[in-house]
């Protein structure tokens, strides 16, 4: 009981994940800045931003349902934190593994996007509502390719448990090469999930100002910011657990450092993508997801099935 | 180098030939012709320049207050670089009504709206629209470009009161 509480609140739960997310927000922003030939923020900037937001007044629009308006960010943050508990960090097993936890993690990761939609919808502001509708439309576009891309490796491993997938590829590292198309699809769709450029359509500031979060302020906005940051870490961790489950099973320290390195690689790719591309229009994004990414993910499933058949 | 302004004088000659205008008062410079014509002849002359001499580009419309008259200047250009400034005067008596040139130059909307807003003339044939360039809450009957209009003294060291 006490151990579970420790795991949820401190490690690897809320506090550890929060700290890790601040580190990777810094890494993301610094890399982005350096790629653009700028100095970028100092290391404490993400923390300072959060502290600043926490100290600001929280304004709830008159027309908004104040209870729901305040509860939505909590749900968002709780869902991403919960998802992290099922992802292996330094060993093959996550802290609370069970059968089919991949499905649970994916559902947990869908919750933040739904909360963005609800947050925008209940803000009773034009920009927020436009952002909400865009977030929802985008969800329908990237979610299917993302799921299919993760389904392929799981099919090949023959398990729905992340720990099981990790263990399988740890034993058969050569089979990781089969999953390269799925890796690419999942990195691109992860960018859509995280609502970062070129898929930052729901909060494109030149079009709809702050998007979903236009009416949010103070600690509620801080919670949303933390959700976005933790989501980055969780998604990167998920991708590295499924696609790079290499060199694990050693000591906890080495495993942990390796975990950080893998996260860095994924975050680096996500940042590079953010810096290198112009924002898509909604119709282009939907077209791209359905006409390019979904077929690639589908092909991956076929390949995985064929490989699995050949191995048997 | 004293140029004889062949092209510029050619334009004047064509206008003279067609409308029998008095072109003695015209000023001719390099690439520039400034011609004052009677109000009645203006629209026909403008159409002639637009349609037959290829003065297809309306650069600007200037309205000015000369005290007893309002003067309107239409700066029109052709691709070769000649700009004709066609001017006419109307008696300054309220309300001053002039004709729109929109049928000849469709891009003239804002230039004519500016005449309405700043000089207080009525441009007949200009579609309804928000006044330009003065703000919506500008007092009625105040036209800054009239010579008898003086801006209110305001001490810029004092902050202006918010709305």
């Amino acid at each position, binding site marked *: 009981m006490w151990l579970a509480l420790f795991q949820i609140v401190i490690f690897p739960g809320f506090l550890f994940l929060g700290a890790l997310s601040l580190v990777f927000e810094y890494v993301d922003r610094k890399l982005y800045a350096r790629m653009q030939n700028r100095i970028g923020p100092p290391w404490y900037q993400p923390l300072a931003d959060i502290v600043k937001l926490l100290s600001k007044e929280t304004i709830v629009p008159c027309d908004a349902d104040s209870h729901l308006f305040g509860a939505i960010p909590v749900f968002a943050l709780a869902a991403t934190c919960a998802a992290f508990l099922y992802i292996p960090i330094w060993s093959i097993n996550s802290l609370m593994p069970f059968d089919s936890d991949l499905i649970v993690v994916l559902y947990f990761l869908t919750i933040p996007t739904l909360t963005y939609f609800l947050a925008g919808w209940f803000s009773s502001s034009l920009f927020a509502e436009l952002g909400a509708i865009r977030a929802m439309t985008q969800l329908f576009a990237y979610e299917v390719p993302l799921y299919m891309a993760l389904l392929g490796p799981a099919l090949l491993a023959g398990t729905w448990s992340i720990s099981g997938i990790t263990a399988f590829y740890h034993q058969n590292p050569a089979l990781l090469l089969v999953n390269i198309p799925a890796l690419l699809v999942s990195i691109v769709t992860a960018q859509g999930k995280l609502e970062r450029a070129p898929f930052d359509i729901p909060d494109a500031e030149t079009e709809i100002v702050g998007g979903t979060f236009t009416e949010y302020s103070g600690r509620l906005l801080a919670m949303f910011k933390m959700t976005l940051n933790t989501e980055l870490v969780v998604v990167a961790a998920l991708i590295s657990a499924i696609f790079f489950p290499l060199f694990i099973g050693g000591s906890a320290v080495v495993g942990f450092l390796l975990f950080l390195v893998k996260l860095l690689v994924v975050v680096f790719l996500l940042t*590079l993508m953010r810096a290198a591309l112009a924002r898509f229009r909604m119709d282009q994004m939907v077209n791209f997801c359905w006409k390019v990414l979904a077929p690639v993910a589908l092909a991956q499933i076929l390949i995985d099935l064929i490989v699995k058949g050949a191995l048997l | 180098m004293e140029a004889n302004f062949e092209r510029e004088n050619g334009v004047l000659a064509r206008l003279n030939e067609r409308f029998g205008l008095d072109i003695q008062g015209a000023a001719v410079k390099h690439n520039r012709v400034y011609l004052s014509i009677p109000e009645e002849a203006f629209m026909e002359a403008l159409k002639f320049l637009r349609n037959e001499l290829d003065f297809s580009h309306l650069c600007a419309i200037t309205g000015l207050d000369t005290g007893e008259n309002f003067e309107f200047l239409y700066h029109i250009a052709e691709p070769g670089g000649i700009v004709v400034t066609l001017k006419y005067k109307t008696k300054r008596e309220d309300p001053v009504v002039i004709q729109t040139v929109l049928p000849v130059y469709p891009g003239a909307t804002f230039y004519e709206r500016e005449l309405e807003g700043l000089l207080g003339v009525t441009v007949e044939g200009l579609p309804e629209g928000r006044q330009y360039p003065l703000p919506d809450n500008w007092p009625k009957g105040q036209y800054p470009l009239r010579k008898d209009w003086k801006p209110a003294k305001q001490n810029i060291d004092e902050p202006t009161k918010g709305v």
Partner: protein
Amino acid sequence: MKTTGKMVPMLLNMLTKKSDTVLYPAVQAQVPDKFRGALKFQNDRCVGCKLCMRVCPANAITIEKVADKQFKAIVHLDKCLYCGQCVDSCNKDALENTQNFELASGDKSSLTREI
């Protein structure tokens, strides 16, 4: 030929380069020698012709007589355009532009200065 991700090599290359931005105000910004910054007045040269007052487009400078052949200049930094026309117009070189550009102040009255 149009492809996606054309900027990637440049973006990666930039990671190895020194950044182009500086941490102003921690790092001093440099302005060129003949920068038109705040005015400097040398009252021993001024003969009180007030030409600078007349040419100023913004009525930003006032020359006042303090004693016989003694003048002081009052500049309204909030009105000054830093065009330097007064410097050009002064026949006695009593005025000059300095390189000082950090003139912001939270108090408007402090912007009217005797120089």
